[in-house]
């Protein structure tokens, strides 16, 4: 019985950690969903930390993950491409009390563009 529980837990763990997309992996689900940190290049770790802290002030990271993985912005249903990442970056920069400065916005936009490129790889 104990073995069965361990097996079940292992299966659930794998299922939770299973990437939705082959190229951009995510961990967790629902409100706790996030990009798999292991796929973030070393020079973008800083941007990833900014994203993890700043973006979730207003919305969950799930929204960003789904947008990158599907190429569609979950709220608007419109394509989420590099033009969109820049637009969202500008939107966050201009948003009152978004608490993001220019440099942080630039870093996060670059990170999202990198992830979009990864997602587009065949």
């Amino acid at each position, binding site marked *: 019985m104990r073995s069965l529980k361990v097996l079940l837990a292992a299966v659930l763990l794998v299922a939770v950690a299973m990437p939705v997309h082959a190229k951009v992996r995510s961990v967790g689900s629902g409100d706790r969903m996030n990009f798999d940190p292991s796929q973030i290049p070393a020079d973008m770790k800083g941007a990833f930390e900014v994203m993890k802290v700043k973006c979730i002030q207003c919305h969950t990271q799930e929204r960003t993950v789904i947008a990158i993985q*599907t190429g569609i912005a979950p709220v608007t*249903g*419109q*394509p989420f491409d590099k033009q969109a990442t820049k637009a969202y970056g500008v*939107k966050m920069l201009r948003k*009152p009390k978004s608490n993001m400065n220019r440099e942080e916005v630039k870093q996060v936009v670059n990170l999202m563009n990198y992830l979009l490129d990864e997602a*587009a790889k065949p």
Partner: protein
Amino acid sequence: MCKRFTRQLLSAIIIGGFICITVSKSDAIPAFSREHNTECATCHTIFPALNEYGNVFMKNGFVWTKQKKDDASTKPAAKNAVKGEGDQEKQRNKEVSSGTASPKEEEPLLGAPRKSEPLWLAGLPQTVPLSLSAALNASYNDDASYDKLDLSTRAISLLAGGVFRAKLAFYLKYNLYAEGEFDPAVSNTPLNASPPNANDLQEFYLVWRNTFDTPVNIKAGRLQPALSLWKKSDKVGISDFVTTSFRVGASTFSADAAEDAIEANAVLFDRLFVAAGVVDRNGQDSNEGYGHISLKIGGADFKGKEPDIDLDKESIYDYMYLVLGGYVYYGRNSDSLASNERNYFYRTGAEMDLVIKNARLKVAYAREHDNNADFAVPHDEQSTDALAAQAEYMFTPDLIAYARYELLNPGDGGSVQRYIPGIAFAPIQNTKVTFEYQHVADNTDSSNGDSNLYLLGIRVAF
């Protein structure tokens, strides 16, 4: 004096803490939040006040606008070709999802998360587009001869709004229950119609979006004509701007009341919004008409497209935008269908909305000329001027303070000035607590004078 003021203030706050008053109108639609699975803050600062994206959503007939794909360098590096046969519409959506085709204007992608294909094909909203808004208010009028404290005004409204296949939008506000004495100073403005049912259906209109594939939207039904930059509900505080809520003599017209109307509006050149309409009123000998024009400088345009900002260069202009607007309304009314005494009037207005980072300045001016506002013989022509200026500051996303100055000059002598500071707090995005103080200096009549009014309002939408 100071002690007295403090005592009054405390009384108002304490009493208002558990009850409330004045019916302030709302257009905040939680149904949109459910439909698009997004938070209130997407479209509102503190509801029901709209932010610039909420304004875009409303202007565009409750559909998210699609951004133009005009920059080839930003397109995905690779695209997957979509092959196969079958339903052409589904096939096209797959192509759009994969990036091999551009989506048609305003149409959501079938591949978008949380969208039901059968519902979309049937033209139905993804969720039942209904919601409720409830307001409880309390007021304390130090100068009233009786009923200084009024806890008896409240309202519950049924709200509905949505769009069928991105073609036909609808909006409805039905007042399920409303109680409270009319007082324009505290926002319980009646409609341009007669009782008993005038106030039940506040708004119900349909919008034929992008009529015949043009930028023109045709709006018809009971609606608030597009005159002011800010719809009646589009406010942080409790009371309405005097420039839109004032009435003259016995005339029932006010610029923020709903009318039976047909309106054509359009966003032109991305930053110009124009609207024109005709209004049908009982007892008219011909229809009334109105027009509006507004221009947005800076910020996201009227289609929601962000400005092209250089992220490497800091500029204060990146954080500001200015909207300039003007309108004219020409109409006529009377006090009864049997009366031959008509009032021919026109209202003109000019407005400005300036936003710089967390600060906002609204300035509005309106002038109305009536040739017989009291429907009397002989006619008594008069012109009325109104001015309002409001400064707002967002301390946090859930806390906005504001201060407003208003001047009403009825034209037949004297004037009314109002000084209105207030603070609005939204502990949860769908719950708002507002405290507003009004100091009124009225010298239109020797029997009038200064008065003070304290308002506390709590409203929820769900």
